[in-house]
C-alpha cells in the first residue's frame, strides 16, 4: 500500500504541476497599484432588448412562518427604466496597473429567506459580514466553481460572522439548510476596476488609466459580453451594451 500511496502522490504532484504550468500565463498578469495620470471615467448603461419575461414565482416550501407568506420572485433578471439591466458585473479584463485597491466592508444578509444583496462585487481583502436576520438555521455556503470558499452555519437570530475574503473569482452562494430557492452571487476582484449595474442598468468606472482595454460584462442568466474600449487621458466615455 505504501508504494501505491507514494505513486498516487507523485501522480497528483505531476497533475498539480501540469495544471499549475498551464495556468501560469493567466496568473502572471498580476495587478500593480500606483498613481494614475490622466485617468478617465468609463461609464455607460447595459440594456436588455426585447420583451421582459414575467418574473418566476419562487416556491417557498419551508419555514413560512419566518420566511414570510408574501410571494417571492426569482431575482436573476431585473430590468428597469429604459430597458436598463440591473445586476450586471462590469469589469476591465486583465488590467495590469491603475489605482490602488480599496477593500472595505461588505454585508450579506439572510433576510426572510433571501440573500441581500442578490449580487455584489468587491475587491480582495474586503471583510464580509454574513448575517442571519431570521430565526431559523441558515448556512451561507460560498463556492468557487471547484472549491469551497467557506460554509458557515448561522443558527442564531441576529448572528454575524465576519471574514476577510482573500481569493478572487466569481462565487456562488447558497443555503443548504433546506432553503433551496436562496441564491446569490459575489464577484471578487484583485483590481479596483469593476462595477455592478444599478436598477436602471447604469455603471461607472473611475480613474481608468489611458490605454486600450477589454471591458467585460457578465450576467447570471445572460452570460458574458465584451467591448473594446480606448481610454484617452481625461476624456470620459459613455458606452451602451445590449443583451439580446
Amino acid at each position, binding site marked *: 500500500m505504501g508504494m501505491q500511496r507514494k505513486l498516487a502522490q507523485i501522480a497528483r504532484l505531476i497533475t498539480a504541476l501540469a495544471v499549475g504550468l498551464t495556468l501560469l500565463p*493567466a496568473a502572471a498578469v498580476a495587478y500593480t497599484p500606483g498613481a494614475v495620470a490622466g485617468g478617465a471615467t468609463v461609464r455607460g448603461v447595459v440594456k436588455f432588448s426585447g420583451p421582459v419575461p414575467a418574473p418566476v414565482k419562487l416556491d417557498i416550501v419551508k419555514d413560512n412562518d419566518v420566511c414570510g407568506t408574501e410571494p417571492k420572485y426569482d431575482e436573476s433578471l431585473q430590468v428597469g427604466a429604459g430597458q436598463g439591466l440591473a445586476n450586471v458585473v462590469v469589469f476591465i*479584463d486583465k488590467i495590469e496597473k491603475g489605482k490602488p485597491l480599496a477593500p472595505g466592508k461588505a454585508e450579506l444578509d439572510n433576510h426572510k429567506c433571501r440573500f441581500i444583496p442578490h449580487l455584489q462585487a468587491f475587491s480582495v481583502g474586503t471583510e464580509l459580514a454574513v448575517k442571519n436576520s431570521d430565526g431559523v438555521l441558515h448556512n451561507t455556503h460560498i463556492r468557487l*466553481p471547484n*472549491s469551497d470558499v467557506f*460554509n458557515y452555519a448561522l443558527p*442564531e437570530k441576529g448572528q454575524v460572522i465576519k471574514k476577510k475574503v482573500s481569493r*478572487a473569482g466569481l462565487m456562488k452562494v447558497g443555503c*443548504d*439548510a433546506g432553503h433551496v430557492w436562496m441564491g446569490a452571487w459575489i464577484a471578487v476582484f484583485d483590481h479596483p476596476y469593476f462595477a455592478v449595474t444599478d436598477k436602471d442598468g447604469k455603471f461607472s468606472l473611475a480613474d481608468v488609466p489611458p490605454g486600450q482595454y477589454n471591458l467585460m460584462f457578465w450576467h447570471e442568466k445572460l452570460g*458574458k459580453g465584451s467591448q473594446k474600449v480606448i481610454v484617452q487621458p481625461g476624456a470620459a466615455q459613455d458606452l451602451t451594451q445590449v443583451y439580446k
Partner: protein
Amino acid sequence: MGRFVADEHRNYKIIFMILSLGVAASVVWAFLDEGYTRRPWKRWQCEYAQLRPQRASGEAVAQLVVPDLQVVDRCPTCHAGIDDPSMVGDQIPKVLRVHPHRDTLLKSHPPLRFGCTPCHHGQGLALTAETAHGPGDPHWLEPLLPGPYVQASCLACHAGPEHLPGAEILAKGKQLFADLGCSGCHATGGETPARRGPSLRHVAQKLLPGYMVAWVANPARRRAHYQMPQFWPRAASDPAEAQRRDGEVRAIAAYLLEKSEPLAMPTAATLLVAERADAGKGVFDTVGCRGCHALGSGRDAVHIAEPKAAGSGDAWADFGGSDAPAEASPAALAAPATIDFGPPLGDVAQRLQPGFVPTWLLDPAAYWPQARMPTPRLTEDEALDVQSYLFAGSALPAPVTPAELAAPRDPKLVERGRQLIATYGCSGCHEIPGFADDARPGPDLTDYGAKDPRDLLFATPPPPKAQRTWERATEAKIAAPQALSAGTIQLVMPDYGLQPMQVQALAVYLRGLREQRPPANFQRDPQGGWAGLQAESIVRERGCAQCHRLVGQDAAILRYYDQAHLAPPSLDVAGARLQPQWLYGYLLEPGPVRPWLQARMPQFRLTPAHAELLAGWLAASAGKNPGLRPLPVRAVSPQRAALGAQLFERMKCVTCHRLVRGDGVETAQLAPDLGLARQRLDPAWVRIFLEDPGKVLPGTKMPQFFPDGQSPAQDVLGGSAALQMDLLVEYLMHLGLLPVGSDPATPGQEAP
C-alpha cells in the same frame, strides 16, 4: 667401451636436461595457470587490494556459510566490493562494484545470514564466472537468475509480495496470474479461487446463440482486468484452422445449449416497453451502474466515460478565471479516464436474451451464486426500466422459445462438444453442467519454477543449446502457447494476447513457484498482514474504487457528478469516521444513510468473514483497532444530557439531520440521521469534523458552526467552542440511550 659409456652418459644428460626443462616449464605453466586461468578471482582480489588496500584481507577464497539454508557461497571471492559502499562509479570494474541495493535489500538481508544464491541462484561453490553463473549451460540446473527474474526468489519467503519494495514485477505477475484466471486450470498449491468466467449453467436463457458462437470463436477484450482468451489464435491467418475452429465451436455450443438448465424468467415480449426507456436511463445514470459499465460496445474509445459539463450548465463558467487548483483539483482531472470494470453495455441487444436482464438485475445470485456483480437493490419496476433503456432502439431478437430449447440435437455433435470442452478446459473458468467443480484441466504449476529446462518445450527447430533456458521456454509458451505445437504435440492452452511486459511478469512469478522453501523462521508475513492483503484483494475484486475514492485516487464514477458530495463517499475517511462493527453490518446489509445520494450502495453478498476483513482493514488504515467491538457507553448525568439537548436544539442540527429512523421523510435536502450516530460514528472523528467540516470532507454541505473557534452561544459553558463541541459529541453518542420523552428535537420537525 669407455667412449660408449661416455656417449651414453651424454645422451642421458641431454634427456635429463630436456626433462628438466619440461619440469621447469610445467612448473611455470602450473604457476601461471593457477594464478590466472584457474584462479581468475585472484585478479579481482589484486585489483580490489589496489583500490582499497586498508580493507583487502589478502588473497583467499572468501565464502559465506549459511547452515540454515544449506548454502556455501563463494561469490565474495570475486565480488570483493559487494558490501563496500565506496565501490561505486564507472571507474570501478563491474565485478567489484557494491551491491546496487546495499542500503535496502542487502541491509534487510545481511549476507552472513542469507548468503547470495538463495536470492540470485547460481552455483555458490564455483570459483569461475562461467561455472558460478552458468547461464546458457543446460548442465547447470540452477543458473544465475537473469534481470528481473531475481525477484522470483522473493516469493520463497514472502508469499505475499504485493507491497514488497523491489518486487514490483513479481507482484504484477502474481496479480496477472489471478486476473487472467490461470488458477482455473493450474494448481499452484493455494486454495482454489472462484472461477473467473461467468456460469454457463443456464446459458441458453442468457446469451443469443449466434452471439455465443461468434464470441467463443473470436472473443474480444471488453474489460480491464480479465478477458476470455483466444482458443484458436491461428485461425485468423490459417483458413484450415478457421474451418476446424468453426466446427469445434458448433459442437461446443451444441453441448452448452443441450445441457443448459432452465431458469424461471419473465418472457421478453411482455417486458420491453419503449416508454420506460427514459425512466431506465434515469436509474442507470444515478444508482451507480456507470461506476463499472460504459455504454459503448467496442474495445477502446467507448470505454471513455462521458464527463458532465463543469458548473452544471449555468453561466458560472462563463465568468472565466479559475480557483486555485492545488486546493481541490477538478474531479475530471483525477478520475480515471476509462470505465471498464464491468463489460460495456451498449450492445446488450446483440448479446443477451432480453428476459435475462431484469432477472439478473434483481438478483445476480439467482442466476449465478458466485457472480461478482453485486445486487443493485433495484425494485422490479426499476429493473424493467433499465432493461427497456438498454434495449431501446434495437431491433428485438427473437426470444428463445421453450420448443427451441428442447430442439433435438445430434447426440454425436453434443458428445463431441463435451469432449472438446474437456480438452480445452472450459470448465476451468466456467461453471458447466456435467463438469466437476474442482477439476483443474491444466498441469499443476506448484513446482514449475524449479523445472529442468530440458523438460520444457522449445519451438521447432530448437534454438542453440546455450539459449535453451527456463526463461526463454516459459516466455515463449505464455506469449503464444500454440506456436509450440508441432507434429503430434498439439497444445491447447489459449492465447491471452499479452504484452511482452505482461509475459515477463507472469514468467517471473512462475519462476518463483517452488515447492522447496527456506525454513519457517525465514518466512515473512506481508506488510499489513495477510488480513490486509486479503482485504485489498476483495476491494479490487469487488471494484470498491469504481465508486469510492480510495488511497487518494478519485473514483471513476465521480465524472458523472457536478459536486463531490453527490458522489458516493470517500473510503479514505471511512476508517476514521465509522465504527468497524457498524460498517460490518452495513456491508452485509446496506441501506440508505445519506438521503441526498441517488447512488445506491449495492449488496455485495459478502460472507461475514469478508465483511469483517473489510471493516477491520478500513479501521486499521485509520490507525484504529480493527476489532468489531461496540464502543463502551459512558454514563452521562441528567444535567449534562439536558444541557446537551439544549445546545443541540439551539444549533438547530435537526433542520437537516433527522433524529428518528424510518419516519418516512426522505428528500435530497436532508443529512444523515443522527439517531444512527451512536452505532455508526467514531466520536473522535465527529469532534474533528465539527471543527471544520469542509477541511475534513471537501465539498461537504455540513457548515462550520464554530468558525475561528468562536461559538454563537456565548452563555453556554462560558462560551467555549471546544467545550460545546465536546458536549455535542457526547450528546450525540448517547442519543439512542435517552428516554424518548426527553428528546427535544422531534416536535415540529416531523413530517406526517
